[in-house]
């Protein structure tokens, strides 16, 4: 029996919201207490199936709304917040792991493996996702990289992970991605039925719960959302861009939801990176590698000549029927801030209005932002 079962829809949503903001990681704690092992993976994409197949709980390390008391001293001044709070939850023992993995998403995050291993006993590593996505050899390279990761995971759990284990996990994650797509359909087609912060919380708990439980949660909640009696209001439809790594506070999304319908976004895009089912037939690691490169979304931290990000954003806006874009970037985030320039110029060229802003996961006091947003929205509504 899961905590959220036998509750009303609103109670289940409140549970998700609390869980996302809880810096004590109660679900991970419970998993450990029952003898399970935990793999923490930093943003953005990680092939969670490999950890899951070994019986580990893959947990998305994505910072936390807290003060980085100890971790602050481990870093210099000009860095984004998620780095610090992620280390903080590990150093303070709130999030206890058996393996930490970071990807070369940016210059800062790549350093985390080294910082982690100087500070914590358990192993940490970089998973070198290919950065030459257009090489004909990227997929076979990535397959080998996944095999290396699998070996390390096998050492930690003390058993081999075979192709059938992987296939079973891929099936679980295929279902998860399907259910997340359904949730996004609700957001897109009937945004008055689910607010931006509710949808976000529903997605984000996926990085904290056993994935089977997340599937069950979505299976219960998404149909219930569709039954909500809410009515369509006169709000502008927007795409939110800039949540691929550091996460905006829930409160900020709630404020956004008061004035607009967020019909699509890149929040926690790593959990939704793969866009289609990964085939169960054939070599599972090769299928995962192939899917990462060939059936995937986009983000400022992946360079692929086939996916110019500003064109992808325009496409996201078009497909979701949005009228405007909200362009956020985390403070001190090189890739996010660089991309913001390209996004803004592409939107200028396409004459699509946008609201541009920097944020921090630990920001408080939203009055100013709220006023600016309201002005932006009013200008659009009465234009």
């Amino acid at each position, binding site marked *: 029996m899961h905590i959220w079962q036998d509750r009303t829809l609103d109670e289940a949503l409140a549970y998700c919201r609390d869980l996302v903001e809880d810096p004590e990681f109660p679900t991970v704690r419970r998993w450990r207490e029952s003898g399970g092992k935990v793999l923490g993976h930093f943003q953005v994409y990680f092939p969670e199936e490999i950890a899951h197949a070994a019986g580990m709980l893959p947990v998305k390390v994505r910072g936390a709304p807290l003060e980085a008391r100890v971790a602050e001293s481990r870093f210099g001044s000009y860095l984004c917040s998620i780095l610090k709070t992620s280390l903080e939850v590990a150093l303070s023992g709130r999030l206890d792991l058996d393996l930490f993995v970071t990807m070369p998403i940016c210059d800062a995050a790549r350093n985390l493996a080294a910082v982690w291993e100087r500070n914590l006993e358990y192993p940490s590593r970089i998973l070198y996702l290919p950065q*030459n996505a257009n090489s*004909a050899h990227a997929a076979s390279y990535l397959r080998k990289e996944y095999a290396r990761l699998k070996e390390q995971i096998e050492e930690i759990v003390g058993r081999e992970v075979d192709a059938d284990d992987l296939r079973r996990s891929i099936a679980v994650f295929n279902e998860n991605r399907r259910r997340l797509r359904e949730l996004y359909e609700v957001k897109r087609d009937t945004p008055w039925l689910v607010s931006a912060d509710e949808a976000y919380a529903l997605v984000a708990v996926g990085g904290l719960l056993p994935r089977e439980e997340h599937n069950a949660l979505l299976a219960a909640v998404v149909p219930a959302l569709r039954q909500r009696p809410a009515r369509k209001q006169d709000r502008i439809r927007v795409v939110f861009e800039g949540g691929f790594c550091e996460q905006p506070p829930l409160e900020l999304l709630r404020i956004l939801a008061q004035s607009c319908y967020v019909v699509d976004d890149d929040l926690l895009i790593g959990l939704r990176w793969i866009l289609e089912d990964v085939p169960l037939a054939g070599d599972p690691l090769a299928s995962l590698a192939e899917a990462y490169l060939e059936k995937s979304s986009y983000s400022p931290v992946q*360079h692929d000549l086939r996916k110019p990000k500003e064109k992808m954003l325009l496409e996201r806006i078009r497909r979701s029927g949005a009228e405007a874009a909200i362009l956020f970037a985390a403070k001190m985030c090189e890739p996010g801030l660089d991309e913001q320039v390209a996004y803004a110029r592409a939107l200028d060229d396409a004459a699509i209005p946008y609201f541009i802003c920097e944020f921090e996961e630990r920001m408080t006091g939203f009055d100013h932002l709220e006023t600016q947003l309201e002005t932006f929205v009013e200008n659009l509504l009465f234009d």
Partner: protein
Amino acid sequence: MTDGNEGLVGRGIRDGSRLFRDWYEQLTAASEQGKGAAYVFVMGSMAEILRVFDLETVFPEINALQTAVRRVAHEYLNQAEEYGYSPDVCGYVKADVGIQLRGGEHPMGRIPRPTLAVLTNACNTYIKWGEIWERLYGTPVFTLDVPSSRSGRHLMVPGTAAFEDDRRYVEQQIRELIALCERVTGRKFDVDRCREVLRLTNEMSRSWKRVLELNRAVPAPFDALSDGTVYLGVLNALRGTPEGSRYFHDLVEEMEYKVANRIGTLHEETYRLVFLGVPCYPIFRRFQELFAEWGGVFVASAYLGFAGGGLHLGFQYDLDRPIESLAEGVLRSVGGVMDGVLFQDRMLVEMLDEYRADGMVYHPIKSCRTVSTGLADSRRWLAQQRDVLSLFIESDMMDKRVVSEAQLKNRIDAFFEGLATKRLRAAAGEAITT
């Protein structure tokens, strides 16, 4: 005293500055003739392939830092910020955006446009940077993916199956790069030319490694921060050329002479320092003086390793297997550079010992998360391993708005006072025990 070698001391600086100016003149000429160039980066320039196609190489990072050294960086940064770039992104990127928006106008001449850009993943910002040229000009951009060590506890080991897998991936990509160069230039790849470039790079690499080793002498023959940066310019600009090779051959001669005759830098050497981070180009000369005034000489700098693309490691290409060996060299040198940035701990301890250093100077900067992110924690770790005084100062290598000379001076003075006290105490301790 004359021994026929009067011209030797300081030759590296003189020749280096001349070669560097000549190189910019060459770039200016190329630009004026409407020729393009290959844009490359210091951490993996792939000159070994590009020279074979007679592609002029442009280093946007060097263009950028030159605007700071010549004290006009703010003009370029402002222009890029007006274009939309945040004050918090890498200043090199913004200076280049400024240069591009001004049609290549640069204090050293005129920079040709990119006909091709070759990047490595040694810095992720390279990849974001390349996207700017893609957008501005539709430049073909090639990202060479060089996976380095996955963890500091298990650094990559040449000869293992895992290393060979990575090497093969790099080799496959190099072959793709060659095909792209053939398409862009309309010329066939000439493997014998490539062998010649590899041979010249081998010579440079051997000499550069030797130059750095010679600085272990007391007194050190050159200052790794000020003189070293001049050498570094030539190392990148003329990699794989006869002039470059000759220059470093001569530099070894100069440094050997200085060591044999116990000739140090222009300043008295009272404290031997190791530099970590990126130089403070907006006040380049003054920054070094703040140390020199106290007798501080930078005997080693991690910058000379990573910003030299790993040539300091001295890897020698096997000319009988040029592409295979180039792939191995790239993996070891660019991968080695990345390891040196991310997993530098043991390397730092070795540096301290080999160079008999008295102190470490950490200079993380706003612009560069690649180099700066891990420095504070690495410093904490080092303090647990070694009784060495260190200084941690933050500023920028481009943006003078975050460079406060007065504040830097206070911190630097306090650091030297600490070094002096430590030395006195050690001397007193010795006096008591003897």
